């Protein structure tokens, strides 16, 4: 009888292995452990077994019962998990389809450059100020030491609204407007649109400038070099080589043009730098005493420097853009690249 019990175990385990569905498992349970099941049937004949074997047989049959029950439970549990997974797998989606949130837009590349430059100077303690884009001749020229009938007016071809009113040709008039209101010390930055009567691959009739001004006691040309060097290294990288060379702006004296080593050719000479190895980046200089006089600053007590740069030019160099007009054509295929 013990042998029969063993055989029963072998058969039951074999059947369990091949079972696939929940139904199979419950059939197996019924077949072996049910009231009319094989194990029950076998135990019905226990009376024929000698008494000494009875306890052993009882123990073995109990063990078999527990074993089968556990096996079936486990198999059913596994099966339930599999079933759930099957359901989930049937819900499988194509994860390579594009997401459907609204795609981000972009900030205009020139405005991105403006933010970058403003944040550098704000960290240097400059405050950002603004002024009108349509300006009086006085602020745009006269007060900046560019009198009527002065050849320096040729440097900037001007749009006129009337004899006395112009589209500002630079952001420098903001200097004057602020200095008229505020006594030194002063550290200001004025970004904005400016207008010049010019249009070709490297000129648009409107573009963006940032102008900076620092006035205090004891400000020198060395300080101008220091601040602008720190700034240009932040924008173009720590290894940027730069040079200051004499130039002329009516409202600064001495005046300096600041060049950086050509970012395209590294100084070997290329089309962008006109073979010179250098790129003009900004104009600067010590504020001319006559400008201070126009705003009633004492030029013996205070000195200062000013600088100005064109944002499109910086953006063109940073992004390798060769036609400035692209910035204002607003082709979405262009704008989305930044």
């Amino acid at each position, binding site marked *: 009888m013990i042998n029969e019990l063993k055989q029963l175990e072998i058969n039951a385990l074999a059947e369990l292995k091949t079972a696939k569905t929940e139904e199979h498992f419950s059939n197996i349970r019924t077949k072996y452990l049910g009231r009319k099941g094989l194990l029950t049937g076998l135990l019905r004949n226990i009376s024929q077994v000698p008494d000494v074997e009875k306890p052993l047989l009882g123990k073995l049959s109990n063990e078999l019962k527990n074993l089968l029950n556990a096996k079936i439970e486990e198999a059913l549990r596994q099966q339930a998990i599999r079933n759930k997974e099957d359901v989930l797998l049937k819900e499988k989606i194509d994860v390579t389809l594009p997401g459907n949130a609204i795609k981000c837009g972009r*900030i205009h590349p020139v405005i991105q450059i403006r933010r970058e430059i403003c944040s550098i100077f704000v960290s240097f303690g400059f405050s*950002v100020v603004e002024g009108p884009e349509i300006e009086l001749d006085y602020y745009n020229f006269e007060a900046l030491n560019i009198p009527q*009938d002065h050849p320096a007016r040729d440097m900037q071809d001007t*749009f006129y609204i009337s004899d006395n009113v112009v589209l500002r040709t630079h952001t420098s008039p903001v200097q004057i407007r602020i200095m008229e209101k505020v006594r030194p010390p002063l550290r200001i930055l004025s970004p904005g649109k400016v207008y010049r009567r010019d249009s070709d691959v490297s000129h648009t009739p409107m573009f963006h400038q940032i102008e900076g001004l620092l006035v205090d006691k004891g400000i020198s040309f060395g300080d101008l070099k220091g601040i602008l060097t720190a700034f240009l290294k932040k924008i173009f990288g720590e290894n940027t080589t730069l040079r200051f060379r004499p130039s002329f702006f009516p409202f600064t004296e001495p005046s300096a043009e600041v060049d950086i080593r050509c970012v395209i050719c590294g100084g070997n000479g290329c089309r962008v730098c006109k073979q010179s190895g250098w790129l003009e980046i900004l104009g600067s200089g010590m504020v001319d005493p006559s400008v201070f006089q126009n705003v009633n600053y004492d030029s013996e007590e205070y000195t200062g420097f000013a600088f100005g740069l064109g944002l499109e030019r910086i953006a063109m160099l940073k992004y390798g853009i060769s036609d400035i007009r692209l910035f204002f054509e607003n082709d979405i295929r262009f704008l989305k690249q930044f």
Partner: protein
Amino acid sequence: MLVSLKWLKDYVNIELTTEDLAHRLTMSGLEVEEIKTVHPQFSGVVVAKILSVKPHPSAERLSLCTVSDGVQNYPVVCGAKNISQGDIVPLAKVGAIIPGGYTIKSSLLRGEKSDGMICSEAELEIGDDKSGIMHLPADLPLGLPLEKALNIEDTVLDINITPNRSDCLSMIGIAREVAAITGKKIKFPTVKIKESNEDINSLASVKIIDSDFCPRYTARMIKSIKVGSSPVWMRARLEAAGMRAINNIVDVTNFVMLEMGQPLHAFDFRFLEKEKIIVRKSKENEEFISLDGKSRTLPADTLLICDGVKPVAIGGIMGGLNSEVKEDTQVVLLESAYFSPSSIRRSARKLAMPTDAAFRFERGIDPEGVVKALNRAAQLISEISGGTIYKNYIDEYPKKIPLTKDIPLRLDRIRQIIGTEIKAKDVTGILRSIGMVLKQKGKGTYLVTPPSCRVDISREIDLIEEVIRLYGYDHVPVTLPIVDVKEMELTPRLDMEERIRQLLTGSGYTEIVNYSFGTPQAADILSLPENDERRKTVMIKNPLGEDLSAMRTTMICGLLETAKKNANNGSFNLKLFEIGRVFINSSKDELPEEKNMVAGLLTGEITDEFWCSGKTVDFYLLKGSLENILFDLKINNCRYIASSIEPFLHPGKSCGIYLNDKKIGFLGEIHPDVLEKIDFKNNLYIFEINLDILEEVYEKKKISYREISKFPAVMRDAAFVIPDAMEADQMINIVLDQKEDLLEKVIIFDVYKGKGIVEGKSLGLRFFYRAPDRTLTDLETNAVHDRIVQNTVNLTGAKIRT
């Protein structure tokens, strides 16, 4: 300014390489923009001698020459008449290349062998003379390449002269700079005048009526001149400087202008009636034909050089056709004058005649150089054209041209400006190297007198600039200013702009920047009524084109145009915004009003890859973007008013946006008529908001925390059937105006029309009730809810939908 190095070397020794020279000039303020090499346009052309000339046996107009290059004799067939035995000529040998890329080959001309070509100036593009073979000086060694013999190769520097440096608009001026930066001495041309016995004063006179415009007028006369072409050397120099050779008289005036910076003019004396020069201002609308043959109507106060009867030149700008030097001119009156810079500039601008002469006069010429240049030109004319110079010169000098003298210069001030100490010895050395005269005046102070050519120097700061420029900007140590440390903040408006930028780009909008000017038709395209503020357009007097002549009064047109351009490029799904200014003409103020605006546009599908939604943009998407902006700026009390209609918007799908009864902008769908005008197919949705008005509120907005209730909210829904014309906003306001404390918020969960609704529409409202200190009971909730619903029904006549 184009500077020929060969020419420059006439006045100063240069030992530097061209690159070094260019660098040194650039670093001292004369920016060399380009270095150009001038090459001859030929090769294989040598100096040769004609050994014999015989007539061609079968061609009357040709001759047979034997030509030697010193090594070998060549048979050459030649068609020119001006050759004879012994002449030294340029020979293009077999294999030579002449301008135009022609290669000389051995050939038979009418049966006679020709091994080369004897050339004219024109054929070699050395000059314009094509009348015959070019004759070379007899002392040139035979066989020498012609480019060497004529010294044609040259290097030309293109130097950018800043407007203050009028002294550098001449070869001698550049030479002065080179001498200063290299420590060399400058060599001035020696001027020797051989005068005849006849005195100019017995033949001609000068009278200056307007001495403000013309403080000084000098003249010389030369007779018996022979007008012809200038010698090769002079033409080469003029051409290197970018000027065209004309004849030996005009060329000399140009040459001396380039050499010394003093513009000159030569009149044919025959045409000066009454042998007089009278300098006066023009009357309004005087007519005059200038040298270039153009008839010009002169504005009043143009300086005129006249003879006893009529104008003969526009002073300082251009001569007249009636008195120009012609082929048969024999006597010239040469003018060298000083004209007031501002008057020349005004006239040159008004007349649109930016001539080389005007360019120099308006920047200020050397007052002391007037007579020097007069003599130099007289000498050259007499040398080149064989003329005789009359005795003496006329020098009308009614008004002293002021020269700057004794400018005080303090070494302390130099240190203050530069930030570093430069030794007194170096300062004085630098200033003396550019011709300044210094006198010590007490310790650390000098009195400095600049040379008369430096009209740009009148103040101490001008001297300091000279010192630092020649000391070298590179030698100034880098320092950092000592200032208070404080990090600054953006102004509220710029801060607001930044937030809007972030938010809109995050919601899918891309920023554009349009020109602030556009077509004056903008107001018509938008169908704006006559009295609309946006018709008060600021116009540009000198625009680049009519379509760029009107300052924008709204950003909408720019957005529409951008949408149109992008659609033309195949981009139909657009979300765009722009932040910028619009300009409204003001009748009161000189300057127009500038308003800061943000505007946006939507069109097409919500996303480019619309596999998942396939939805096109609509009014509510745009409104949502706007609400987000206002929410972010903590501006919660805006109202959307449908009765506020913009003529360019769909009257049923648009509204005005109001903040505290002030209109801050609008949004809506573009009117079909406007779409038709701009030929756009898809629907467009736009908004525009005035940021200046928002700024007033934005500044004052502070966040104060409100406690969050720990107790649950109770929700109740109710659907009201109301007339179509009734707006959701009105319903919400009626609910909120009841000011029930327990009502936390009310939202719209459904808008329904159709089956079951006979008339009007159903508006489903969801009410949230909550108490801060307890869980509400059903009883409490129902009481409030029923009250609100009943009141609302009473106030609106709505029916409750069940």
